[in-house]
Structure formats: C-alpha cells, structure tokens
C-alpha cells in the first residue's frame, strides 16, 4: 500500500501537499513532486489538499495511472526533499482550469 503523485501535478506544482506531510516524504524536480513510497505512512493528509487531485492512495489509482507508483518510487530518490510550500508553476492556474478544478 502506498500513496503517489500523478501527472495532474505537472505544470502545476502547487506544493500544498508538502505542508501537511507528517513525514516530509515529498521530493521534487522542476516539473512535479514525487512521494518517497518507502517513507510515506499512507496517512492521506495530502490527498484532499491538492487543488488538482493529483494524489491517490494505491487502492484508488485509476488503471491508466498505475505506472506512477514506480515513477514515484524511482524519481523521489533522485530529487531533493521538498518540505516547504513553494510558488506554483506559472502555468498552474491555467492547468487547474484545464483539468476542471
């Protein structure tokens, strides 16, 4: 069981999730954030705070997004730990609208 960030985060990177993560398990590159699935405790705090619903518990991940589990595990380890809220990407608001949120 784990919790992962999916592609809705791309071009958004709102980073609200990192402020409520009790174990600071988010890591980010310029594009999006990833969850270190070995550290995440599956508390689910990040899920409702994401403005674009990019985050899923494993049991709820749509089939076409399941590849994100491995991507989170692999890429989180390569990126720096993101523990504080950052400015969203300039494209964030437009992308949010595009996604229907």
């Amino acid at each position, binding site marked *: *069981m784990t919790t992962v960030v999916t592609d809705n985060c791309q071009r958004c990177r709102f980073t609200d999730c990192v*402020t*409520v*993560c*009790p*174990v*600071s398990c988010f890591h980010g590159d310029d594009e999006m954030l990833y969850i270190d699935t070995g550290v995440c*405790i*599956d*508390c*689910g*705090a*990040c*899920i*409702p705070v994401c403005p674009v*619903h990019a985050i899923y*518990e494993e*049991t*709820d991940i749509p089939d076409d997004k399941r590849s994100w589990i491995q991507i989170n595990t692999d890429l989180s380890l390569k990126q720096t730990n993101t523990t*504080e809220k950052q400015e969203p990407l300039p494209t964030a608001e437009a992308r949010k609208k595009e996604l*229907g*949120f």
Partner: protein
Amino acid sequence: MSELGSPENPLKVAVVGSGPSGFYAVEALLKSGKAVAVDMIERLPAPFGLVRNGVAPDHPKLKQAILVYEKIAESPAFGFFGNVTIGRDVAVDELRRLYHAIVFTCGAETDRKLGIPGEDLKGSHTATEFVGWYNGHPDYRDRVFDLSGEVAVIIGQGNVAADVARILSKTVDELKHTDIAEHALEALGRSNVREIHVIGRRGPAQAKFTGKELREFGELADCDPVLKAEDLRLNPESEAEIADKNNAGSAKNIEIFQSFAARAPSAKTRRCIFRFLEGPVRLEGAGKVERLILAKNRLEGPPFNQVARETGETVAQPCNILFRSIGYKGIPIQGVPFDERKGIFPNDEGRIKDASGPVPGLYVAGWIKRGPSGIIGTNRACAVGTVASLLADLPKMDAQAKPGGEGLRKLLAGRGPRVVTYGEWRRIDAAEIGRGQPKGKPREKFTRIAEMLDAIG
C-alpha cells in the same frame, strides 16, 4: 544587548505538550535560521501524544510518524521535560519568566457531551476513555468497560468513532500482535459484543470517516459491515455534495457504503451497523444503560450546510454500552485565556489573545488552536503557521537573555516531580519494546507512570 535569536542570545521557547503539533512546532523553530533552544514539557514520562495514545494500535504505519519526532529530538537545541504538569509543577507565569515564548500544543483532551438525560448512566462512556484505555494511557488504564452485553452503540461518524467500532469488531487474533495494552486485549477477548451500531445524526454523505478507515470494515475477520440500501438514497442536496469534485472523500465514502449494502450476509458472528439521520434523545435504564432513544432526523438547508432536524419520530435501540464521539475540546490552563464554547485557546494565527488583544509571548498550535479537526499532518501546517507568527513577533519581544531549560530544571528540582529526560524516555522505550518481543508485539506499553519511572530507576 545582543539581538534575540543570535548565538549570543538564543531565542528560548517552551513547547507545552509532545504530540504531533508540539514536535512540528519544535521542527519549525529549529529550521527558522535563528539560534534557538526549545524545551518540550510533557505531563507523561512518554512523549508523542495522540500518536502513541490516540492512533489505534492496529494502525502501526501511522505510528511511524514517531520516527520523524525522534529525529527532531536529536537536535542539541532540544530539551525534554517529561512527567512535568503545567499548573501543578510549574505555573504559566513562571514559564513566561524563564522563556521568551511559550507554544501550547496540549491538544483537545476531553469529549463534548451529548447533553441528554441518562448520559451519566453506568455503561455510557466517552470515546476518549476507551481509546486511552486500549492504548495504555495511564489516565485511563483503570477504567472498566462492561463488554458482557451484546449491543454497543457509538454516537458519531468520524475516525475516532471508526477506531472504537473497529476495535470492538476485531477478534483477539487480529489485535494480539499490535501494541494494544495487555489489559485491553484480555478484556476484549472476553467481550460478548456482537452488534456495533455506529450512528450519525446526518446522512451517509456527511459522515466524516476517511475512505481508508471505512474500507477496513469490509476486511474484518469475524465482522460484517451492515447498512440498509435505502439509507443510501440521498436527497438532491446530498447528491450535489458528492458530485462536487472537491468533495471526493464523501463520494468515496458513499461508494464504500454501497459496497457494504450490497454484501450478502456471511457466517461472521459480529455485525457493525452504520446508521444515519438519527440523533440521541435520552438514555434509559435501571442503574445502567439499557436503551437509547433516538430521534429520526431529516436534512434541511443548502448543500454543504445541511443541518439535521428532528422529524418527530423516535426509535428505541437496546444498548448495553455506549460511546460518544461527537467532538473534543481542550482543558483550560490557569494563566491562559480560554474559549469555553469552542474549547480552544482563543488566538489570531496562533497568537493567544484575550479580550484586549494578543498576550505577549503566548502561542498555540494543533487541536487546542483550531479545534479537533484534521489528521496528524494537518498539525504540521498548523504549527508552521504559529511559528511564523512567533518569528514575526521577534522584534517586539523582550530581548533580554532568559534562563530557559537551565532555569526550569533548577525550579523543578525543588518541587518534587521526577523529571524524565529524552534519554531516559529512550530507556523506557527500549524496555517497552523488550517486553513486547516475547509476545510478538511491537511493544508492551507501561500503563502506569510509576512503572515508567521504575524502568529508569
């Protein structure tokens, strides 16, 4: 005088309470870039608050948040004063003389009352007592819960209600390898409870469970989740609520409830029954709880602001033991303003205030700041916000050097409490883990303060 927060004049802060919001406040202070010395004051010898004493024993992964707190505690700028009670061992005014600022993170320690006749009958309990009891909290370890009857009722539909219901629904085999307190495991092993009613005054779309907690009821070894399909017929306002993209949690809950309603009855011996649109009116019984009278409700008002209104119809539910879990509130501390109605320390972005404005040097974070909502991580954002307020106030603070932990230690030395340091807590921790090993448990908690103190000599 050197600038406050410089290495020559570190900012000295006392954090009262050692739960998640306390540790996140410490973390934020340590990361502030200022020179700080932070002392955490905890009334028990054991830290971690509700992660140790609230999070259910069968949710070990959530308890791993403790790993983060252990890391925070490694900082040389962190001090721990366990087994020290504010008000009894040290007054708030004394702390204000010792520290530049105090951050209260002492949680919401008591339950709200239902306010119905019969509430104090034998067999009527708070969820807090039960949760504290099965988690081995010293305050509750001697509580007695009569589980000899078949019917338990839980009032409330949040995650604490779910925890209570699930612990009552599980077999000993499902619990024996958790860190549940031994006394609770024994008592639950003798439990005759077979019907667990979880009752909410509003509808299934307004239930506050998280999907994760709710789903667990479908995976129990000897208990079926039960609810009537007709209870899932929603009014248009509730339909609108679950259709809202930003309310995915409720839509998920409805989906899970639907899966429960569609299940065929099995040979399992226990049933956990989810009931909606019913509110407690009174408890009846000769000397102890026998019956709960419930008023049927309907919803009134626009989506997301629907309130429960009684229809006039009532039903009687036989009941052998009742737990209320309808919200929590804080306990006042002498020397700190208190909002009776909300059960919190009144504050403005974490700055504690009274009628005349902010009280210098007093801050608050966590449930005692904003009320009992959110989960562990919610308190991180909350504590970070409070510490931001505190740091913004730095230029206004009395910059005189303060005695801090050294002063507190001296003051307490003359007063009697056996102060438990963080190093000593680690010895208690190791002893608990050692006690659990032969039983295949992650730990067997000490459930009395005296036992904890004995473990460190």
